[in-house]
């Protein structure tokens, strides 16, 4: 198992190299660069813009720029942001926790909702509740997250129950520790529910489908005919098998924890990584984008690895060497 782990981790290196090289080329080849915005400022002369370009190192040939960046990366230096003049690590670090909080909350909501509801729907197939839940699920899957986000923001505005976007209130700093948790929680309701419900819809359908298939298997029929009560049949035997594919999904979700739900964060004003990276891509803040890509690829591969390990742990048929 350890050799397998090591092999997977080593495979990550050419992957990250390939991803970053490709993205670097794409960003640089597209027209314009970070200085496009200031170019149209009537007060700033062309010479000043060229000097800025030299300061940022954007006037050098592409492969030299990439090589310099890679060399710094090996020393764990992600470079500086053009827009903010701060190290990329600080910039990403300042938003990392916010995105983690949001994604973890959404994950918890999604899974806590999806599994029980999926089981309920499968065991009462075609009943009224099953059909109602399926309908809700379809609605949830088809509504884009930004739309639901906007809708909920509007409801919050009209009713005044929830804060309108943001993550903390103005007086956050003087609140006691439980006040702080409550404050972030209140702000978390809208974005986490949008993300959570959206993901729950798909998961619920998956759970339902898997369980239905397992319930048709011979061994389930055997267990019932042997006189086992319905409860242990479903929960101890059937669900345990039905949940296998979902474990892989769970691993992928872990890989996506640091990913940004950029559009939703933008709509709701959540100060997370997604918004930061989206802005950086639009502005062509080169090293912020590259840094986020490295982190994104790393967590993705890690998530995949965790998914595979979890699968091996839960399914005795699967073995790695």
């Amino acid at each position, binding site marked *: 198992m350890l050799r397998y782990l090591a092999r997977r981790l080593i495979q990550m290196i050419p992957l990250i190299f390939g991803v970053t090289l490709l993205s670097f080329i794409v960003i640089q080849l597209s027209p314009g660069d970070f200085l496009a*915005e200031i170019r*149209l400022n009537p007060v700033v002369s062309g010479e000043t813009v060229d000097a800025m370009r030299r300061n940022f190192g954007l006037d050098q040939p592409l492969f030299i720029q990439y090589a310099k960046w890679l060399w710094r990366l090996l020393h764990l230096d992600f470079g500086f942001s053009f827009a903010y003049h701060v190290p990329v690590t600080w910039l990403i670090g300042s938003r990392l926790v916010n995105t983690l909080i949001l994604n973890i909350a959404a994950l918890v909501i999604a899974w806590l909702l999806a599994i029980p509801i999926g089981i309920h729907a499968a065991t009462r197939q075609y009943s009224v509740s099953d059909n109602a839940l399926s309908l809700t699920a379809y609605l949830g899957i088809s509504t884009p997250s930004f739309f639901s986000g906007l809708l909920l923001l509007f409801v919050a*505005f009209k009713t005044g129950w929830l804060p309108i*976007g943001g993550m903390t209130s*103005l007086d956050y700093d003087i609140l006691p520790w439980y006040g702080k948790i409550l404050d972030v929680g209140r702000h978390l309701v809208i974005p986490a529910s949008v993300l959570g419900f959206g993901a729950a819809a798909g998961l619920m359908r998956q759970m339902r489908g898997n369980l239905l298939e397992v319930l048709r298997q011979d061994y389930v029929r055997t267990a019932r005919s042997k006189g086992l009560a319905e409860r242990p049949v479903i929960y101890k035997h059937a669900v345990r098998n039905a949940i296998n594919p979902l474990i892989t999904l769970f691993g992928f979700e872990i890989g996506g924890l640091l990913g940004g739900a950029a559009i939703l964060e933008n709509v709701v004003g959540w100060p997370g990584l997604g918004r930061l990276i989206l802005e950086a891509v639009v502005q062509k803040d080169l090293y912020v984008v590259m840094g986020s890509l490295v982190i994104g690829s790393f967590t993705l591969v890690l998530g995949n690895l965790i998914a595979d390990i979890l699968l091996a742990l839960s399914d005795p048929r699967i073995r790695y060497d």
Partner: protein
Amino acid sequence: MVRRATIYLMAGTLALAMAFIAGSLGAAPRLPDIPNPKVAAEAPEIGKYGGTYVISSISDFRTFNPVVSQDTASGLVTGAIFDGLVEQNYVTGEIEPALAESWTVSRDGKSWTFTLRQGIRWSDGKPLTIEDVLFTFQATFTPGVDTSNRDGLTFEGKPVRWRKLDERRIQFTTEKPIGLFLRFVGIEIVPKHKLQDALAKGGAEFSKTWGVNTPPRDIVGTGPYVLQSYVPGQRATLLRNTTYWKADRKGNRLPYLTRYIILIVPNVEAARLKFLSKETDAYSARPREFAELKQLEKQGNFTIYDGPESFGSEFLVLNQNPAGVSPPKLTWFQDVRFRRALNHAIDRNTIVQQIYAGRATLAWSAVSVGNKLFHNPRVQQYPYDLTRAQQLLAEAGYQKGTDGVLRDGQGNVIEFTISTNAGNPDREAIGNILRQDFTKLGMRVTFAPESFPTLVGKLTGTYKWEAIVIGLTGGIEPATGRNVWLSSGDLHMWRPNQKEPATDWEAEIDRLFEQTSAEVDQSKRKVLYNRFQEIVATQAPFMHFAYPKSQPALRNTLGNIKIGLQGATGELETRYYKTVFK
């Protein structure tokens, strides 16, 4: 004898009383540590102390270093924390003393001497000295520092020179007299004792100092507020500076507000929602929102003001650059009669109604109607008149065939493409209106928006474009936009970077700008700007559409509201809340 004594007594008392009254009427307010504080003259009311003022900003702050800051959002913070030698009055546009209490200019116009106000301290208690001023200018000109302030202080390739005269005076010298010097010299002054180590390490290091990752305690300024905290992506909180150097007419030290908070919101919609739900107390509405917000005034306890026009507008520009366009298109675009005909065919009233909901003033001059100092109303106008347009085209040799298609003298069909940056709904709407207008003349016009970086690349790099709808912001002095109007400028969009002016009128504009730069007397500059605006209107290289009005909305609990240029509603230091309980 008693009567004479009584008379002397009465005279004496009367004289004393008059002296006392005269003295108290004419006495300038004094602050204990500042002998000559600046009095906020624009503020109509004496305010109350206290309160928290919250506004929103669409983008996040990029830096807290005023030398490096180039964007509006960072300017909100640095503008509250730092001051320059001079500042601009937001109502009249005139330059007034700030950190410098007075200045003189030599007879030949080449030397400017500024005297620092006494008693001003940095927010960490150290006194402001002439060394800080010298240091700031030195940092601005250090190679490697990422600043845009250098261009304003460089004239004909040579930077301004400065030297210390004594402990309170600094002198700037230029090769030729520079009339605009006051507009550029007001850069925000930074403390030498906090930043000299960073500057010693080089320009690149200095650009990274006082960025958004700096502990707020380290950011030291002379302005009305001090940075208390910054939460990335969320807000910046500033606190009142208790040693600020401005006072109101009664001698109370400014500012009145205790806290000033800038919230970061993702977009304009969110800013509007926060204003309507009373989380913020100020909102710059767009022209289309005026009518709707007016209805909500009572419910939201605010007033939306009918503000003056902004200084910038959108315009259409045709490419007259042989390096970008070839004949026959080049011949049409370079033909002033063609341009004037197009100008008459633009339905500006529709643009005003559809895009600005009626809240914009038709633009005939390159200088905005809202620019009270320099706008020239007596320039050639191009009212919407298709007949006149067709007449001008016919006179210039462009004929409409029996198929309704317009052709030039050589039989080429008049067709071209209008471009703009995609994602800007105003410009996209205007582009469509223009396409329809020009099609009525028999031209084949396509409208094709493209991404902003592509557009900028074409405008400033390849020059391969035909017609573009775009906008520029304007400062109060047209000469600050010399990159646009000088024929050698790189933003002289229709034909940039000319070695020699290609036409007489461009040569005349060059001369006018040279003269304005040198002219210290503002009224004489106005005469030169008037001529400049006449030429631009007659030659129509830019066809401006309309100057949109501003419509600032403010909560009714705020005081000292006086609308100034471009919809500014007051000075930060004189803002106060009429009832204070937060």
